[in-house]
């Protein structure tokens, strides 16, 4: 009964969607805003990657809200899971030698890859969020491969707070040097070298540390409970 009702509902939505989507053309030239960002982006922000300049410069305030949402979700996850009383520790099954050696060997390289990705966020595809996710996946490897190792949660929290503070302070410095929040007050430099684009690499480094430690904290909370 429930399946039939659901399928009828989906068919109604399907026809409504077909009629509306055939009006949206596919593969046509972009909107006015998009062409403005592409034509003027390098001159105004100094970042070669236009998506990065949109995320951190034109829409930087939006990104601050996004980081806040991630922070609140990590905090809420900790709050929901923390009220359970700690059970007796289960016996940890030691992993095989291949697995434990593999995670010891690969962990620094995964950290290095994540750092590379968030350092070069203004030059290549990537950025703080992607690099942070890769760093958190390195910690996931440690938690799965070497079950005896535990990382101190308080260090994660300190790094996370410092990352968030750096973002806000750089935004407020823009208010001091110029007249609006997140003004790009540092020199732009030559595009497509590493030290260019003003405040964009600094903010992406802060976001990379923040997202990496936040997601690693989420993994830690979820693994403790399972």
């Amino acid at each position: 009964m429930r399946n039939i009702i659901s399928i009828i509902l989906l068919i109604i939505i399907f026809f409504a969607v077909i009629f509306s989507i055939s009006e949206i053309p596919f593969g046509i030239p972009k909107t006015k805003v998009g062409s403005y960002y592409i034509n003027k982006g390098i001159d105004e922000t100094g970042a070669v990657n236009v998506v990065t300049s949109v995320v951190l410069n034109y829409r930087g305030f939006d990104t601050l809200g996004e980081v806040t949402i991630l922070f609140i979700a990590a905090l809420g996850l900790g709050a929901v899971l923390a009220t359970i009383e700690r059970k007796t520790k289960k016996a940890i099954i030691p992993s095989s030698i291949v697995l434990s050696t593999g995670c010891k060997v690969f962990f620094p390289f995964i950290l290095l890859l994540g750092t590379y990705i968030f350092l070069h966020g203004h030059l290549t595809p990537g950025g703080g969020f992607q690099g942070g996710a890769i760093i958190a996946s390195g910690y996931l490897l440690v938690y799965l491969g070497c079950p005896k190792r535990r990382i101190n949660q308080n260090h994660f929290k300190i790094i996370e707070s410092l990352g968030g503070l750096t973002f806000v302070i750089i935004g407020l410095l823009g208010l001091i040097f110029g007249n609006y929040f997140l003004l790009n007050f540092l020199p732009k430099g030559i595009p497509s070298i590493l030290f260019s684009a003003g405040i964009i690499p600094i903010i992406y480094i802060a976001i990379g540390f923040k997202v990496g430690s936040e997601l690693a904290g989420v993994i830690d909370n979820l693994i403790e409970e399972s």
Partner: protein
Amino acid sequence: MIFLSNYIYYTGAFGLIFIGLYILLTRHNLIKMIIGLSILDTGVNLLLISIGYIKKGTAPIFSTPNLNPQNMVDPVPQALVLTAIVISVAVLAMALSLAIRLYQHYRTLDMRKIKEQRW
């Protein structure tokens, strides 16, 4: 068929959205419903990205000096989807933590057996 070949990305995106909606409407297991929510998120992200696509377009990155800006795809939907992916990760983490709490309280993940959650 012409519609399918012209609008292949839209078709794929709405296929994912319908799969996610179907899972959300018909499954009873909470973990499967969260998987459906995640598939729905992916479909919406793919739809937003494909609206900004240009035929034979390149990524909006000036990695070599002589790239034609006219051929680049729209950067605005990509920046919005970057936001949406992060938010979907946050939603997924919250949903999973609530599912853990629900399981520890009721000892089941079946929504039919939880009296307050039945629809």
